[in-house]
């Protein structure tokens, strides 16, 4: 197999004495969907927050294609090619849907304060390009028809799609999806699963936190199981499913919806 796109080594983080992430190591291979599962409080979102630089790790390394990320500020990690969505939605209120996605184009745009204030000739051209790219991403997730609505006016499920489009507009190499199916109905979840597969088909490496085990087992190439901040198991879906440790600690008791 190829080299991993993302490699996490011995990553740890504690909050006020609680070990939220405890020496977790795993790899995400390029072009694959890696799912992170585990019960509530297992440290999944903390893991994503560490990878995207929202928290500084207590110890350990995060390596994206040979480059160390763990000491970089959030925006530099983003520019290295990591994008994410949020479990508790973070759409930009007061901005239209297409403007939200255009924010994703930020790192490809060059207009600065003085250019913008004076509407320098190049500004309009760059705006047009960004808008076209943003609309294309909205097309991709199926939100083109709501481009000019205010982001906060979208229903919940569409806000999730908007976050995905916004992240994709940044043309990431690694896309982290934090419970994208939370709050969606069965048909919506199904089409979301298809969307994630299409994202993979674009060559984007995906990491996915998800509680819907059916979806995870269907689309994931690789699964990392966390429990109480530790890695319980790690492997292909079939292997994880039959891992006695996973069955005992997680699947055996209750399967979260």
């Amino acid at each position, binding site marked *: 197999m190829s080299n991993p796109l993302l490699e996490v080594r011995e990553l740890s983080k504690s909050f006020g004495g609680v070990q939220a992430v405890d020496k977790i190591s795993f790899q995400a291979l390029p072009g694959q969907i890696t799912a992170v599962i585990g019960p*509530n*409080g297992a440290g999944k979102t903390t893991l994503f927050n560490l990878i995207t630089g929202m928290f500084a790790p207590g110890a350990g390394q995060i390596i994206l294609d040979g480059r160390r990320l763990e000491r970089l500020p959030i925006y530099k990690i983003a520019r290295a090619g990591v994008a994410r969505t949020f*479990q508790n939605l973070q759409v930009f209120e007061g901005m239209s849907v297409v403007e939200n996605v255009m924010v994703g184009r930020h790192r490809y745009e060059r207009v600065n304060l003085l250019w913008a204030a004076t509407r320098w000739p190049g500004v309009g051209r760059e705006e047009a390009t960004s808008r076209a790219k943003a609309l294309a991403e909205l097309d991709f997730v199926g939100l083109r028809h709501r481009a000019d609505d205010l982001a906060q006016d979208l229903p919940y499920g569409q806000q999730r799609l908007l976050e995905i489009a916004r992240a994709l507009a940044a043309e990431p190499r690694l896309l982290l999806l934090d419970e994208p199916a939370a709050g969606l109905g069965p048909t919506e979840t199904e089409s979301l699963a298809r969307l994630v597969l299409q994202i993979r088909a674009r060559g984007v490496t995906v990491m996915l936190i998800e509680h819907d085990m059916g979806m995870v087992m269907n689309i994931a190439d690789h699964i990392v199981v966390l429990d109480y901040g530790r890695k319980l198991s790690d492997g292909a879906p079939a292997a994880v499913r039959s891992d006695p440790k996973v069955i005992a600690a997680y699947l055996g008791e209750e399967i979260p919806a």
Partner: protein
Amino acid sequence: MKDKAPTESPVPASNEPTTLARSSGAATVRPASFLNLPPAILRALAFGLFVLVLPFLPWASTHRDEITVIGFFSILAVGLTLVMGYAGQLVLSQAAFYGVGAYTSGVLSVNLKWPPLLGIGVGVIVAALLGWVSARLLFRLQGTSLALASLGLGIIVITVIGQWDEVTRGQQSLTGIPKLDVLGFTFKDDLAYYYLVWATVLTVMLLSFNIINSRVGRAFRALRGSEVAAGTLGINTTSFKVQVFVLAAAFAGLAGGLYAHYRSVLSPGTFNWSVSVEIVVMVAIGGVASIWGAPFGAAAVLIITPILRGFFSGTSLAGGGLENIIYGLALVVIMIFLPSGLLSGTGGWWPRLFGRFRPSHPHNLPPEESSSEPVSGAKQVG
């Protein structure tokens, strides 16, 4: 492919997503400015026309001085609107930068006999530089602490202005500031200065609109919406916060320079920290995220205050107590009960009155977060 979008409303038939042919959407694209222009131009023209005839209207013709002062405060309020309404930061040093611009220009023209225009330019630069230095320092503070620290900055500036007698003449006031002249034309009478100030207000508003509808403005608004999400999209949040702070400082410096050569007299009290608070009230009344609201807010506060004082003169409410109560309660009530106007980057509640009404929408989030991960808790702290 057609129904792959998990939408809750029916997907229109025109929605034919083709996974990799992503350029398909480009055909119908028009630049954002083109879409926004017609109503914006209409409004700008109407406002410009109003400004043009205002000095000759009944009440206004005898109150040109007050209206010119409203102009200075409009510039200050536009700057603060960008900081508060678009970048989501409360800053209480606007009056200090106003004072820095005024005193820089005043001191240069009185003590060193520099031409006023040059003095105003230098005043803008000094205010912007001071804004940059202090922003770099103040933004090391976590989120909301910035406001108090910026108030501290205001107190440093007012103390220096008030006590540095050799240069500013301190409490004795700086007098004899020459009138502004540009290429031989001296802005001597009220009317000329009125037009100069309000032309500046319109220019500042135009620059602000241009910024808001650009990459930079989107970064500002993203910052306000969710600083964390903005960061994960590659926005250097600190840099943009500093930029908007510097911009507001430069606007304030410009207002100050114009003020110095209008009044010809400067005294420290004009730039006291309570003036910064007054500007916050103006911005709140105008609608925090509304550039159009800024001049309305400034006008409302500056017109209502003397009326209130006159109305209650002789009672215990006249000593400034009533203004404080009203402004304080106005801030509280507006901030609690008009969140749609405040949370929307597309306009405050003033523009809504003028026809761009949009119903406020409740948040679509479920009431409880479903995860125990510490991100939500930590975000509230930071």
